[in-house]
């Protein structure tokens, strides 16, 4: 049996502690076990060849230049029971509803601050609160139209939200491509194992973008704005533009005249109504944000404020994915919706609070310390893995700017069996589902499972040696 020598030190997604597939994973676990290690390796090679030929890549920077890397994919899927997923789906809908109300409030009356839920100083020191957005009321009251929230599972088997990405979350194309590769290498599995499909995302996203069009525009011209080929997610930008049948534009393709956005075409300037922008706030518009930006478009925010173009996500949405603000999300859910959070947060220490800071700094090895306003895993220090020098540097940074860091107890991320050089071994993973918010809210079925490919590592970011797995949401069919 393939699983015989397999054991994980924490919760395993596929197998129970006694090495048997979990109920929802039974058919899939048995199937993989029947295939055997050699056949599994040959399917892995087929998958890798497919990824190569398709050109499914992401860009990493090694300091000297950009490398276009093939997307790392492990053929053994991660399986989640559809009933558990139904709860996650509701939990994420709840979360995004609250987050959007919160962002709108911050750029409106700021009732949440007046009522003492969010300390004024947190807002005052937020890097991603954009004064240029005050008073704006985007359609549907939605600011974060596309969100990727990271979920982790601790040793006891419970799921937590680790962070929300409300600015320009990436990864959904890899989720979709992972499925298309799985279907090619395991066609037998998809016939009757109750695996829920993941497609339909692109058409939902397109419908959402169209619904954002300015008043009176019936057939909006929708485009996707990319920073360009050097960006780590350029593949995804192409993929989504192509799936939706919209133009992929770069900043230099756009121009703003009289508060209207136009695309430069061979027949002259053509109006643009909706922009799915994958350029971060900082670089979006040199007129308002980073004046050095070469990848944005001058005047974009002016046009947005004038109501002549819709931006998704709206500028300023990032105020809510500040990791310090994240620590208030359960309170925000209660405040705006009168409900308890369905999916809990990972306990988070606010380091500007002296008592909490003292507790953390005294025992840094027990914590993960994160900069409040970074993404992609940059600047994260895992206490248990850090060198003495790194711990000291971390302590110094916290003391110098406590507002800008949060600490969380180290989560013993769950594992799943992964095909490694040494055989099938447990590797830690997380999950990024994607949430679309417009007139209604939609959560992808499953999401992107990211795997830390190095033994024992807890860092799943693809920019730092992470891989991925397909995520099966499986409906149990009674007798199994």
């Amino acid at each position, binding site marked *: 049996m393939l699983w015989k020598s397999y054991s994980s030190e924490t919760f395993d997604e596929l197998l129970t502690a006694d090495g048997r597939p979990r109920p929802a994973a039974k058919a899939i676990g048995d199937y993989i076990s029947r295939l055997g290690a050699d056949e599994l390796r040959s399917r892995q090679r087929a998958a890798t060849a497919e990824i*190569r*030929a*398709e*050109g499914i890549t992401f*860009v990493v*920077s090694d300091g000297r230049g*950009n490398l276009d890397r093939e997307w790392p994919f492990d053929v053994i899927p991660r399986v989640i029971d559809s009933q558990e997923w139904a709860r996650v789906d509701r939990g994420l809908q709840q979360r995004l509803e609250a987050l959007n109300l919160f962002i709108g409030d911050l750029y409106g009356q700021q009732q949440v601050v007046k009522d003492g839920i969010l300390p004024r100083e947190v807002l005052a020191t937020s890097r991603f609160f954009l004064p240029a957005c005050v008073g704006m009321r985007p359609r549907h009251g939605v600011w974060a139209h596309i969100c*990727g929230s990271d979920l982790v599972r601790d040793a006891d088997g419970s799921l937590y939200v680790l962070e929300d*990405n409300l*600015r*320009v*979350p*990436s990864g959904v194309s890899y989720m979709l491509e992972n499925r298309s590769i799985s279907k090619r290498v395991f066609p037998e599995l998809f016939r009757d194992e109750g695996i829920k499909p993941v497609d339909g995302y692109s058409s939902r996203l397109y419908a959402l973008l169209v619904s954002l069009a300015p008043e009176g525009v019936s057939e909006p*011209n929708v485009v996707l704005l*990319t*920073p*360009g*080929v*050097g*960006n*780590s*997610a*350029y593949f995804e930008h*192409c993929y989504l*533009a*192509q799936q939706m*049948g919209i*133009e*992929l*534009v*770069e900043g*230099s*393709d756009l121009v703003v005249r009289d508060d209207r956005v136009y*695309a*430069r*075409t*061979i*027949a*002259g300037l*053509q109006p643009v109504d909706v922009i799915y922008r*994958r*350029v*971060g706030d*900082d*670089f979006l518009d040199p007129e308002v944000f980073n004046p*050095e*930006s*070469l*990848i944005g478009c001058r005047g974009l925010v002016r046009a947005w404020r004038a109501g002549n173009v819709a931006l998704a996500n709206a500028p300023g949405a990032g105020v809510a994915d500040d990791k310090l603000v994240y620590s208030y999300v359960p309170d925000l859910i209660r405040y705006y919706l009168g409900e308890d959070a369905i999916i809990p947060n990972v306990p988070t220490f606010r380091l500007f609070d002296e008592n909490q800071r003292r507790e953390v700094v005294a025992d840094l090895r027990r914590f993960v310390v994160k900069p409040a306003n970074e*993404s*992609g895993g940059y600047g994260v220090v895992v206490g248990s893995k850090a060198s003495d020098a790194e711990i000291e540097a971390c302590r110094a940074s916290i003391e110098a700017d406590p507002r800008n860091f949060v600490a969380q107890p180290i989560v013993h991320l769950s594992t799943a069996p992964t095909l490694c050089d040494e055989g099938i071994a447990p590797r830690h993973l997380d999950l990024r589902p994607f949430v679309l918010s417009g007139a209604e809210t939609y959560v992808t079925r499953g999401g992107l499972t990211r795997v830390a490919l190095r033994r024992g590592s807890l860092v799943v970011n693809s920019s730092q040696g992470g891989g991925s797995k397909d995520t099966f949401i499986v409906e149990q069919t009674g007798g199994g």
Partner: protein
Amino acid sequence: MLLCRLAENAYWMGRYLERAEDLARAILAYEQVRLDIPGQRAPGWQRLAALAGVEPGEADALDPTAFVVRVILDRKNPSSLLGSLQAARENLRRSRSLLPSECWHTLNPLYLRLAALDPAAPPAELREALEGVLASNRELAGHVTAGMLRDAGYAFLRMGTHVERADMMLRVATIVADTLIPPGHGTPFEDVRWMGLLKSVGAYGTYRHRYHAATGFRSALELLLYERTFPRSLAHAIQEIERDLAGLPGNADAAAAFAACRPTRAVETRSALARFADEVLARISQASAVLERTYFSSAPPSPEDGRARHVAHKRHAPAVETRAIGEHQKRRGADA
């Protein structure tokens, strides 16, 4: 609506693909000639190297084939065969939505195969790789013909192809005429060299079919320069460019510039051919500059721009401009 930048990508993809194909064909033909001509008498390889953008040194004379292959596979040199495929691939990457999806599935593996090729591989393997370039290009052309909308994007792709074809045909023809065809008669291997010329521009079969066994300067030029029904001729390329231009908005300047490239004057001698080629090359280059100015110029060039590279290859200097700030922003400017 066709973005200026996409028009530009399609155009340069057409150019670079054609360039890769023409280089592959020229090398294959050259190797054929070399095998038929013993010893040190195989001339012209320096010119071939120049076509790929590099002037050879003294030491390279000892093993010209190895040198040429090295140049072909030099990815740092944007005018090498590999550099051209790389540029074509980059342009396709930025304009995938415009072309049938099969194009990527043909071009990407082709590039990866060639990039992985060992320059020291045995001749048979190299030949196979070069033939692979020709085959894949035909496959790409098939995808385009069978699956692409006949819209402005199609016109720009084709114009790129034809501009490069005309340009390369004139360059290859003058090189071969200059070096492979000796003046006077009765020179040994004359037939072999003629065949080399014709093969290097993909005209051998057609020529045989039309003129049978005879080989002659005038009939060859008739075919290569003036025969409008022959798809690799100069006249055909210019005619197609003019047709594709006709459907585009605001085309008056570019149309006039390409009309001036039509081959009209008869070429009787070798030296006349060289003069004629230089003149037409200059006009084509001028006309393509007008085309670029008309349709592409609204977007400032970026470091990845096919245009920057292509200009570099025409100058035979692989100086690709980099803008550190812009590069950094493109990497980190977005995305979690």
